[in-house]
């Protein structure tokens, strides 16, 4: 009797022990692998969908060997009435190419029908938001552009210089992605125009930009872009601050961006230094960007 009891006790002890040991062994293998793995650095990806937030640049760059072709389009103002079909008759367009020399260094070229302007740019993402083995809280990109206004000079009588056609913009783009749904960007910006309309206008003007992107679904985002022009810099024109609201719709290698904005121009030069539309008065331009990437170089 005693023996049977003991035997039962032993079995009762051994059987669970055995199965526990087995389970632990299985758990162990995965645990062992995880322990042996060196911590890795996790770089934040897809802070924004495109290299453009709406009209201005985002921190994003094209990967090495990637050529991006972009068509940007702004119709006339929505308040221009039925005769212009609420703006459809007065479109401006910018065609642009951007190319990734490296994953972090891009060059670009474009041409806007607005003021017949050619532009060239260099964009360098020099800090990246990352977590894990290495940590850094935000991504930083520097961008510099040069613009050439090829339209006829306003005053043909005076002596006009080639350099009078040029203007520049430099900006620091700082962005942080919070979780996987929300991104915020700040962009302190300088625009320098060699020839300004009146001598009382500043050649170099300062603006502070801010933008956000909210992920609505995997392929759709809502973007906001705002440039605040610091006061007492431009007097000859009644400038307003640029405010744009847009959607990104992504389909594989294409990104479609649809937006409404009070800026007619599609580069920082115009966003900061040439926005005259007022949201209150209905000077709102409907527009879109179409972006397509091609892999032409070695990765």
């Amino acid at each position: 009797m005693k023996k049977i009891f003991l035997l039962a006790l032993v079995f009762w002890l051994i059987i669970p022990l055995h199965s526990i040991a087995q389970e632990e062994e299985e758990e162990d293998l995965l645990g062992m692998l995880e322990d042996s793995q060196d911590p890795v650095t996790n770089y934040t990806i897809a802070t924004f969908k495109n290299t453009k937030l709406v009209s201005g640049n985002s921190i994003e760059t094209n990967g090495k060997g990637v050529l991006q072709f972009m068509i940007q389009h702004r119709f006339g103002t929505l308040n221009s009435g039925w005769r212009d079909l609420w703006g459809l008759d007065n479109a401006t367009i910018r065609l642009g190419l951007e190319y990734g020399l490296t994953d972090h260094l891009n060059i670009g070229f474009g041409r806007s029908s607005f003021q017949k302007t050619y532009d060239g740019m260099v964009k360098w993402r020099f800090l990246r938001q990352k977590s894990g083995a290495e940590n850094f809280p935000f991504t930083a990109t520097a961008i510099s552009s040069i613009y050439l206004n090829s339209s006829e000079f306003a005053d043909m009588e005076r002596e006009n210089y080639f350099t009078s056609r040029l203007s520049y913009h430099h900006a620091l783009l700082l962005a942080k992605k919070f979780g996987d749904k929300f991104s915020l960007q700040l962009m302190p910006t300088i625009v320098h125009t060699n020839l300004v309309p009146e001598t009382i206008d500043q050649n170099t003007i300062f603006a502070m930009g801010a933008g956000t992107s909210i992920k609505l679904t995997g392929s759709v985002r809502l973007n906001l872009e705002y440039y605040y022009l610091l006061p007492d810099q431009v007097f000859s024109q009644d400038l307003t601050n640029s405010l744009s609201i847009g959607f990104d719709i992504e389909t594989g290698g294409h990104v479609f961006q649809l937006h409404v904005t009070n800026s007619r121009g599609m580069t920082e030069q115009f966003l900061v230094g040439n926005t005259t539309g007022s949201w209150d008065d209905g000077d709102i331009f409907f527009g879109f960007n179409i972006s397509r990437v091609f892999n032409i170089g070695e990765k």
Partner: protein
Amino acid sequence: MKNLKFVLILFIIGNTVQAQKYMTQNGTISFFSSTPVEDIEAVNNQVSAVLNAESGQIASVLLLKAFNFEKALMQEHFNEKYVESEKFPKSTFKGEILDYENLTVGESPTNVTIKGKLTIHGVTQEIEVQGTLSSKQSVMNLIFDFDVDVADYDIEIPGPVKEKIAKTIKVKANFTMNKV
């Protein structure tokens, strides 16, 4: 009574003896998606795997962000939209080689069947894969391939790219594991 105690102690000791293990930190897993529109291939050369040579148990871990694609944008979409690497950074496999005790593993590859649990995108599925196992000195080489139905792992492929991404992805693994 004494005997029973002895058996019990032996049993406990037996369980705690370290089993012989083979391991790698740079195993390869590649996958292929083939449609009439586009072929997509990605390779991960930083896969960790371990094999318990006594029991035939096997485990493997990989980081989804370590998959390299031909096109940078594909890699971004894969991580951001499909497998959601921020939320589910790792994919794991835990299983065992079936009928392991009756296998003789030598220099020429032996056919094996592995059964286990594969976790991708936070979803775990029971799978059975076919492969080969060979050993040479202190190295074990395990090669296998299997198919993954993306729908089984709650991975949604949006309409516009449905024609470009296959519903069934072919996966190949090659682990060259060293004795530890």
